[in-house]
């Protein structure tokens, strides 16, 4: 999963300090693998260097100085393109798809369209594998079967998530 794009998506929701971004990321997306502060600040520095985010002036407080980061237009364009582009159908996509769906709901973007686009990409890949079975050897068939069953599992998850979008939207907006 792209940590940088996920952090950018969270920045689109509201300008944030690194500490808040880490907390939001860990709450929604970490699933037992929290980001280190080092990874958060390195990623933010890279995003700022690349013009995707802007760091505000250092703010003095009780602890060390801190900076509030905001997303730029270029950053928003990256988030938009990432969400709208289906991923290459392959096993174990779930963390990426989950992040996209939750971010889309947070940002009031059309999560259902994104799931439909991903569904289409999966079906196309399944069709390619089915053609391969028709034309190939038994070994090709058995290997294609493995891919087909994994893609089918993803597809069932996509369909079920699509059916649960209204409920998920309410939950995400309450948090």
């Amino acid at each position, binding site marked *: 999963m792209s940590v940088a794009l996920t952090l950018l998506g969270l920045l689109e929701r509201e300008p944030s300090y690194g500490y808040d971004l880490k907390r939001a990321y860990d709450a929604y997306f970490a699933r037992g693998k929290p980001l280190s502060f080092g990874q958060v600040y390195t990623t933010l520095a890279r995003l700022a260097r690349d013009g995707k985010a802007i760091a505000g002036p250092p703010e003095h407080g009780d602890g060390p100085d801190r900076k509030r980061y905001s997303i730029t237009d270029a950053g928003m364009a990256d988030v938009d393109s990432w969400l709208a582009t289906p991923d290459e159908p392959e096993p174990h996509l779930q963390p990426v798809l989950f992040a996209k769906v939750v971010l889309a709901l947070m940002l009031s973007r059309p999560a259902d369209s994104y799931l439909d686009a991903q*569904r289409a990409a999966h*079906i*196309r890949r399944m069709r390619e594998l*089915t053609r391969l079975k028709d034309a190939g050897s038994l070994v090709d068939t058995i290997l294609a079967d493995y891919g*087909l069953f994994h893609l*089918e599992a993803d597809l069932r998850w996509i369909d079920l998530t699509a059916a649960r979008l209204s409920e998920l939207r309410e939950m995400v907006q309450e948090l």
Partner: protein
Amino acid sequence: MNTSAAGHGVLLEARDIAKSFGQTPALRGASVAVAQGEILAVMGPSGSGKSTLLHCLAGIFPPDSGEVWYDGRRLDTLNEAERTRLRRTAFGFVFQFGNLVPELTAADNVALPLLLQRQHRKAAYRQAAQWLDRLDLGDKGTRRTGELSGGEAQRVAVARALALGPCLLFADEPTGSLDSLTGEKVMKLLTGLAREQGVTVVLVTHDARVAAYADREVMVRDGVVTADVGTVRS
């Protein structure tokens, strides 16, 4: 949304059709077009209206509103007798449980629609035997279909549907009662023969692996066609 495969003439089309059963709407303005020779999969959750869409496209249910066009003419405005004639002469059907007559032999079941078309008995049975051969059931012709396995019975249903030489084949969950391997054999035969014969197929399924045999897929949700996944036919 009008959905069709680019580059091929449209053979069958539903335009904004609605259909309710009592107070329950099954279709709420569904539109879809099927190109000549295309294999179209219709997917959707249970109760989404996909089977109702197939029944309306096949002229089994008249829609409450909207239009169904087949080969350049309105299907939904034909009377019951005309629709029945069309279903017997131009359309073939394969359903989940085959809808065969279990007391009759495999050959009887395949020959039956040919006999109803007033074909000579000898010719009808010769043709039935040829189709059973093509579906690897050459040795099962004299067996009652009630004695056949699920996969064999479903292949008899495919033979019966194709023996009439239909322009259009409607298949509603054709592998729904079969295990994965048997279902795969049935789908290979069904789609392989349909392509060979140039038969257009409308296939309703909830199974993505079955839908992957089609050229194109549409999704039905809440009685509306919502998504279309097309590919170029090889």
